[in-house]
């Protein structure tokens, strides 16, 4: 796991998981799996933009693009200078 994957995974675990026994990895479906609802995606987008000093266009911040940690990292890398 690279640094970005770890940062994003740690944030998702802290921000969204309620049950202690719920385990996720970089390919766990977050939105389609019901862990992150599309309403709560907003805080994830804000975190990524602040952490990596980027701006993700709203039309790119889709449930599909945010569905796994790996997909999120792919999206972030498109915008990181």
């Amino acid at each position: 796991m690279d640094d970005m994957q770890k940062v994003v995974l740690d944030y998702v675990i802290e921000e969204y998981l309620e049950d202690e026994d719920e385990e996720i990895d970089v390919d766990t479906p977050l939105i389609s799996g019901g862990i992150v609802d599309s309403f709560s995606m907003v805080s994830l987008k804000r975190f990524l933009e602040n952490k990596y000093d980027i701006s993700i266009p709203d039309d790119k911040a889709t449930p599909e693009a945010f569905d796994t940690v790996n997909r999120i990292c792919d999206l972030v890398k498109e915008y990181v200078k």
Partner: protein
Amino acid sequence: MAFVKEQRDFYQNQLKEIEETGTFKKERFIHSPQDADIEVEFPAGSSLKKVINMCANNYLGLSSHPEVVKAAHEGLDSRGYGMSSVRFICGTQDIHDELEKRVTEFLGTEDTILFPSCMDANAGVFEAILSKGDVMISDRLVHASIIDGIRLCSADHDTFKHSNMKHLEKKLQLHSDKKNKMVITDGVFSMDGDTAKLDEMVELCKKYNAMLFVDDSHATGFIGKTGRGTHEKYGVVGDIDVFTTTFGKALGGASGGCVSGRKELVEMCRQKARPYLFSNTISPVVVAGVLKVMDILSKTTERRDKLEENTKYWRQGLTDAGFILKEGDTPIVPIMLFNAKLAQDISNDLYKEGIYAIGFFFPVVAKGQARIRTQISAAHDKHHLDRALEAFTKVGKKYDILGKSKKEVIEMYGL
């Protein structure tokens, strides 16, 4: 545009998929007034069956109360059937004003404005009060109507883990730069039956200079010593900035809702809330009925006291039988089943036993959290609850879920 065959086929396939998952909802036709005992036609065309209703929001048993019905008749005779108008044009009668004042007094707020429903109140309140540069911070389990209302508002939005005060405080710190902040919660959560920690939330809101919004639809009339609501239970009457609540549950069960709170915020709704400006006023017959309900509640707490006793008895009975319940002390008692089809099947079997209780599953609740949500009423007598417990136990044994843990039920039936 013509509804061509391809479109018809597309939607028929979508509906077929829902049916195949065993989660297709079918209405049941009730041929009697709403009460603890009702007569039901289900499936359509079958003969009427007498069943015990365990899933109405009729918490105080007032939906068919003879005094309420009589008052509604008198309202029809004295004020007519419909106003054919929105409030601000020619849709306000003296009885609308009277009801707003009665609700203000009952809730301990500064002012109240009626809406055609609490769904409408929630749709209109946020966009009337907040705008760009403000932030709404909502509990992750707020009602669907609040989510819809938040979506209509241009203020920023964030969420906090359900009832997690540490997480809420983090979010208040994160958004400390916003002009106006509003923390948003249900008073009693409609699917889980737990209550918001309003005392702690009031303290946090004071600390971070945020407003507090509470939808008390599943509390007004019966939560708290005199039934004022969740704020009375937590000793924070006068500290809630905005309430919404409904007249469609404990307060008669017909229709209508309101926003109640700080007078400036209520006035903003009167000036700007779209459902208030563009939707028909509450009909006089409903207002007259709710006014009678307010009279009844102001005289005695016997109904909310009976509801409290019934709730304790019901929760204890289900726990003793071996069902998994969500923790709480409200009359909303979810029996956790986790699997959607299991919830649907148990609901159907309960119906055969003469008990009317519905299964709830995605998207009404999160995936893997299917349940049968029972709701207790002051209209229930002990014999209703005993009969229902007997039926639940019989059906629970059939599916071998009694005394099982969550893990064991999921292993048997999946998620």
